[in-house]
């Protein structure tokens, strides 16, 4: 089981809230594709011979590229690593790029899952976020994708927008349900350093984010999706049974993944790498075959902490037997002890046989709880 992530670091314009690495310029587009293909070659042994179960094109805005270019990368990856039959191959796309012609072209590639960056079906929300598409465009993109046979569809939505309200949020959820979209990623608006959003808020141009509003909308989301029969399989992800994102799930279950492209992250089971977050430096490093990433080799403690942090966010929870077997008795006893108060007094955690899970209320406090379960060297 291994995954490949391809980072396409280009956008038409930067959204106000986004702190992923991307540039809103057309320069170096071809060079970047070449470099990504070359990086695949350079790092062909990274996965230790494991074949690819998932491929994910993220960004940035991968839909800026012609589907043919995407297919080039897929073919290269297949040649170097081997893509297993039936593998999940996802492409992130923005509504403004999704038209009939483009979808037809995409249909002829190996991409079999589409993730649309809708963010909201409301125009005021979209302006607040600095998106370039309209609510109408978002909806037509969804409709068109479904019509063209991309049933394996995911949309992204953002809640907790200060200028918005619960009603708008509810109607966004209802749109997902109306189109019976299989997969939803719902993110709380988060003010990241270095973003325009942060600047606007600091300057008083935008209202600050209201945690209470976000909490309320998250609760609404959980209850609506549950009613509609969706699995809340990760804090920010919902799906109809059997349709979770295999690629993203692999991040949370400790599988290996190779990330190529500027700023992409990789994990080989023991260490994590992240590529340089600079287009020119990235291209140069690949050309000269120089190291292009920073690296962190994980200690036992770090592996345990990461396992706790990621597993707790999923509906599969923390496997206590796995903790005992993989990390040892000390970690196991620590975990049991630290989890106790959250189970008994506050009902934020529940133990299900040998699995430790967040309750619905606990999902609102996942960070606090996982940090409490961490091991401190």
């Amino acid at each position, binding site marked *: 089981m291994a995954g490949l992530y391809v980072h396409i670091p280009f956008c038409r314009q930067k959204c106000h809230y986004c702190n992923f690495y991307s540039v809103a310029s057309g320069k170096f587009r071809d060079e970047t594709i070449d470099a990504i293909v070359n990086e695949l070659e350079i790092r062909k042994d990274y996965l230790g011979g494991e074949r690819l179960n998932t491929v994910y094109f993220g960004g940035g805005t991968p839909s800026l590229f012609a589907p043919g270019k995407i297919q080039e990368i897929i073919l290269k990856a297949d040649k170097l690593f081997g893509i297993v039959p039936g593998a999940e191959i996802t492409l992130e796309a923005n509504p403004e790029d999704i038209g009939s012609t483009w979808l037809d072209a995409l249909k002829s590639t190996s991409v079999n899952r589409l993730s649309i960056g809708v963010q909201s079906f409301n125009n005021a929300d979209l302006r607040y976020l600095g998106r370039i598409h309209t609510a109408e465009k978002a909806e037509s993109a969804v409709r068109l994708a479904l019509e063209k046979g991309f049933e394996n569809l995911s949309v992204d939505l953002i809640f907790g927008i200060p200028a918005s309200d619960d009603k708008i949020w509810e109607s966004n959820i209802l749109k997902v349900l109306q189109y019976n979209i299989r997969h939803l990623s719902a993110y709380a608006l988060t003010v990241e350093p270095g973003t325009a959003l942060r600047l606007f808020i600091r300057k008083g141009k935008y209202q600050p984010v209201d*945690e209470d509003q976000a909490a309320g909308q998250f609760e609404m989301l959980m209850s609506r999706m549950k009613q509609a029969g969706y699995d809340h399989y990760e804090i920010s992800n919902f799906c109809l049974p059997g349709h979770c994102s295999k690629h993203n799930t692999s991040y949370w279950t400790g599988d290996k993944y190779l990330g190529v492209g500027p700023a992409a992250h990789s994990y080989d089971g023991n260490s994590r790498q992240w590529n340089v977050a600079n287009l020119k430096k990235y291209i140069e490093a690949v050309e000269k075959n120089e190291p292009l990433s920073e690296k962190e080799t994980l200690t036992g403690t770090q592996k345990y902490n990461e396992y706790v*942090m990621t597993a707790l966010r999923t509906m599969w929870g923390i496997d206590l037997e796995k903790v005992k077997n993989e990390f040892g008795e000390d970690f196991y006893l620590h975990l049991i002890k630290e989890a106790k108060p959250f189970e008994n007094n506050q009902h934020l955690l529940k133990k299900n046989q040998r699995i430790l899970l967040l309750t619905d209320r606990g999902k609102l406090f996942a960070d606090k709880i996982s940090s409490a379960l961490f091991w401190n060297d």
Partner: protein
Amino acid sequence: MKNIRNFCIIAHIDHGKSTLADRLLDYTETISEREKKEQVLDDMDLERERGITIKSHAIQMIYKREAHNRNESFVLNLIDTPGHVDFSYEVSRSIAACEGALLIVDATQGIQAQTISNLYLAIDHDLEIIPVLNKMDLDNAMPEDVKDQIVDLIGCDREDIIEASGKTGYGVDKILDAIVERIPSPTGDPDAPLQALIFDSVFNSYRGIIAYFRIFNGRISKGDLVKFVATGKEYEADEIGVLKLGLQSKKTLAAGDVGYIISGIKTSKEVKVGDTVTHVKNPCSEAISGFEHVKPMVFAGIYPVDADDYEELRASMEKLQLNDASLTFEPESSAALGFGFRCGFLGLLHMEIIQERLDREFDMDVITTVPNVSYKAYTTKGVMTEVHNPSGLPDQNLLDHIEEPYIHAQIISKSDYVGPIMNLCIDRRGELKNQVYLTSDRVEITFELPLAEIVFDFYDKLKSISKGYASFDYHVVGYKPAKLVRLDILLNGERVDALSTLIHSANAYQFGRRMCEKLKELIPRQQFDVAIQAAIGAKIIARETVKAVRKDVTAKCYGGDITRKRKLLEKQKKGKKRMRQVGNVEVPQSAFLAVLKLD
């Protein structure tokens, strides 16, 4: 004896005392180039960084000169004095060991409050004052103005003031000549019974306590059996000698000399500054006057951040006490903070120094609680107890009255700031005692104030309202009855013992309200509402609520970047470890110092 000169230096912080002292040592070739470090007299790191001499030291110089057509050689003993209000008793003992003093004034800044109070001490002890105008090399020196101030202050002749620069060495020869010519040689009878004044001591891990003394009468030899009058303890003088850059042992020292004695003493508690050393056989008839038991005036709890470090903290405090006898401590426990110590300090700076030394020299992470002064509580039966801790107050129905320490505060400022300074002092229950114009735009204000009122942020306030111009000095003058109440802070109904304060009843309401407001800022939101209340006895006088947090979860796309999120949560975990639990409420350490940060 006629070629000995014993002198000290009186100067305000930053007026260049240490640099000028270095030049004197250079000029007299007391230190070689190799030994030369900057400001050799300040040998603790902390002292060097703060630019103040915390503990006094002494050094002997030999000054050779040609005068009246013959070569003369003089022994100059420089007794360094600590430069802060908290150590005024030590300063007075150093001054008592001298016949003269250099009054160093920064030519760019003029006289400051602390200079004045130490100067008065020196004049009280009949010291010959040699005024020196330092930093004459600076462009913004205003020698004529500052000379006016000096002439007004000590009534000297204008020509007696020596212009100098510690930086360039300008005027150093004139200073040395003035020391020799103006300061009288010591008097005293070398054949009388031994009478020596201890003015300082230091701890040496190999040799124990080294006590510094000045002999007024008689002589002392190696191997003598001596007695310390105040403590009544007897020792054999294992080694005596004079203080060069290091110790230089001697067989005998006599009246007028400044030297050291090593006698196998293990802790600084046995050596009291101001004590008299005499012989066991043939003792002097009376001790040197002016000895006092130094009593700590400010108390605070010191607790290890990590409860497991309690024993280590104790060991560190014991080591600190070895060379700082003015630090006192006794075990104390707090429901909120666990086990720690109630510590007594001479003043606020002393407290800060101890905290910093615990951090630097012992790598101890500590929480210091709200400081309070030493109160005297009288019960209805007429029994007096000293109260060092709000919870140590006798039960309300047994209590007759409380007395609190008062200080005499001297403030020197530009006259522009007199109004705000007066307001500040009056707000702090001060009573104006005197107001004198030193020059047309510099004024000296004397207030009587409760010590408790300067324990919290008084000095910072004073500095800010005077744009940094005001200088401040104080000494304790006695106790007066006070109407005090104990103000408690409750979190979700639970009293936080470490946040209780004794406070004047007139200020209690306002103080309680501000405490609640400040704590509201400092206590993070939890999963439930946290009620912060201020109470006097059973009566709640103020309340704030920290609303429950609704969520604590990262609900955003962080893709494969697991590292960043893990590090964030690991940091949170560390931060939480430093939190204290009061009932079900998590309280950050900063909250325990909230009272010091009220504005």
